[in-house]
């Protein structure tokens, strides 16, 4: 695939604390690449380093198609985590200003702005002052501002934070559409459920370091083992005797058995002991969300499984 952006060995310290270190990943044309991690993991620092807003202490950021060391600002769309708009200006004025800063032709920008305003249900708002917009409307305008100049790389830092579910869907759809049209998209989020359905590849970062990096399918195959949830009054010692169980979590009458990766679900169910008290039983895969929570709370799951590297 066509690489647009490569990050190699990125590291940054504030005062004496290492905020990120040894960050390596690529973003390809037409894909959605997600940087995931809990708050304070170093997502925004990584993104700001890519944008040249922070200077990394070590490592390189390469924009392919452009000279080494140069940030092709006009080709990047950027929606920062902390974002806002000038208050007492008209919507169209500020969108055109963003386009002008990117050297994008203004007549074309105007056309695109009107089209997107319509798409985002903001038709007729172009001459409204920004301070009259609701928060959700404002976020839509910011989003339009970040893509008004048809960027080849779109960097979105927590694009879904503070959005209502309807707007989340609108954004998700638009991001997918942009990727389909060939835009490389790098987004960061801590909302796994949203990202799980849309991203092609992910980079999970915790305490400034890589934890998981790979395509969604690979990560799922690698980490998303089966788990079996049993409702019923069972003794832990009984559960421990069951084959291919890696870990057991028990709370009141609910026991969750984490199964090993090579398990055959049909066979495994058949060999369950008949003494087991089963009021309810379900078998499903571990979600990205659970992997994430495990990592964020430093549970052993990911460490046990080891780190996959699937470039």
């Amino acid at each position: 695939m066509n690489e647009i952006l490569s990050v190699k060995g990125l590291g940054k310290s504030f005062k004496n604390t290492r905020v990120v270190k040894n960050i390596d990943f690529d973003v390809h044309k037409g894909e959605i690449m997600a940087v995931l991690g809990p708050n304070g993991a170093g997502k925004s620092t990584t993104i700001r380093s890519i944008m040249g807003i922070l200077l990394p202490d070590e490592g390189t950021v390469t924009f392919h198609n452009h000279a080494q060391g140069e940030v092709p600002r006009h080709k990047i769309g950027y929606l920062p985590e902390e974002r806002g708009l000038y208050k007492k200006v008209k919507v169209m004025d500020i969108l055109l200003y963003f386009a002008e800063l990117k050297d994008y032709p203004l007549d074309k920008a105007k056309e695109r702005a009107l089209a997107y305003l319509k798409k985002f249900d903001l038709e007729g708002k172009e001459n409204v002052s920004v301070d009259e917009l609701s928060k959700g409307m404002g976020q839509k305008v910011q989003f339009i501002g970040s893509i008004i100049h048809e960027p080849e790389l779109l960097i979105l830092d927590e694009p879904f934070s503070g959005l209502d579910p309807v707007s989340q869907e609108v954004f998700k759809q638009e991001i997918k559409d942009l990727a389909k049209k060939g835009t490389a998209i790098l987004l960061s989020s801590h909302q796994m459920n949203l990202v799980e359905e849309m991203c092609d590849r992910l980079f999970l970062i915790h305490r400034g370091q890589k934890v998981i990096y790979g395509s969604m399918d690979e990560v799922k195959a690698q980490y998303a083992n089966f788990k079996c949830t049993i409702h019923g009054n069972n003794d832990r010692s009984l559960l421990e005797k069951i084959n291919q169980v890696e870990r057991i979590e028990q709370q009141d009458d609910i026991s969750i058995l984490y199964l090993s990766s090579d398990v055959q679900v049909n066979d495994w169910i058949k060999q369950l002991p008949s003494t087991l008290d089963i009021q309810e039983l379900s078998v499903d895969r571990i979600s990205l969300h659970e992997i994430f929570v495990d990592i964020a709370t430093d549970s052993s799951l990911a460490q046990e499984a080891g780190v996959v590297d699937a470039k």
Partner: protein
Amino acid sequence: MRNSWKVAKWEIRRNLKSKSFLISLFLTPIIFAIFATVPTLLSDSGEDQDSEPAQTTVYLNDEIGVWDQLEPMLSEGGDLHWDVELTDESSDEMATTLEDETRSVYIHLDESALQSGTVDYYTSEEVPESFQYEVQLFEQPLRYIQLERTGLDESEIQTAMNPITFNQNEVTMEAGTDAGEAQSQGIEYFLQKFVPGVFAGLVLFSIAITGMMVFQSASEEKKEKVAEIILSSVTAGELMQGKIIGYFVLGILQVTVWIGMAAPVALALVDYPIIEYLLVPELLLFLLIAILGYLMFASIFVGLGATLEDSSSGSNFQGFVFMIPWLPFIFIGPVLTNPEGMLSQVLSYIPFTSPGIMILRLSILDEWPWVQIFISLAILIVSIWLLMKLAGKIFRIGILIYGKNATLPEIWKWLRS
């Protein structure tokens, strides 16, 4: 640089479209005019009301015949609000009249007054204090008569009557006797000398105010969290430069509008060729100083703005920085009294005070101390360069810190980083 211009253009456009800027642009000179003229108008009208009925009635018992000489002069002059009534009555007889009246005076000019050189006059209530000067009018004709009596002839009397005046002639290196000449030219000379300086002072004042707008703009950028979006297109340095340039243009625009409004009025009211006085080579130096002053204040303010999200909650430190442009005002008195003194020279070398003080000094000094001017300009330019660098550092980090105002130790850390 191109990006800086884009930012500058945006700041200019944004302000020109904002109602508050336009209102202050046009309202400020009007308010100034009101403050400048209303007190005068009020006091004028006050006098008008008083002066019409406020004639002082002067009962003159003139036994010598001085009044015949004075009367034609008085009717020409017109400054004197006297209502002269000739009378033969003595002071005792007049006493009752004066008791009943207000603003009345009784003057008795007789032989004994002439000989003793003392003229008694009696006043009623409410006679203005200025009357004691007005009454001196009688001195000359009385003196003339006195001298005439001693038997001097016309020319001798003239010599005796001529006051002896002392003319100061300051001898300076080049000016020679120009000083005396210049002084005799009075207000014309005064205008010629001060107009360029006053103009530069106005420019400095106006752009120092727009310098404060740079502060607001940087602080707003932080509060409204737009900075990071902008920084994805331009560098922090370009954003800062753009703001400084943008508000500079706005400042100049402001001065132009103000002068555009004031000039026709001034030209109509004043008879002197002010434009001619203004457009002299000295003006260039004055303007250079004013512009340097702006650059210095703007760089201080843009850095300061990036440390403050909410200008009302600034610490004492930031409050103090705000006072910097007004520092020269404290020293106006001492510098005016001694423009060549030690204090004036030292203040010219301190970058924070030098623009204001230099403009003030150069306006009053007859001869410009070029060495001092050059040293002062050099210090100013170096400080601007330094301050811009420091402001750039503060701006770069400060503008991206959200939700809090920076403290002094933090700012110090950024400066050292």
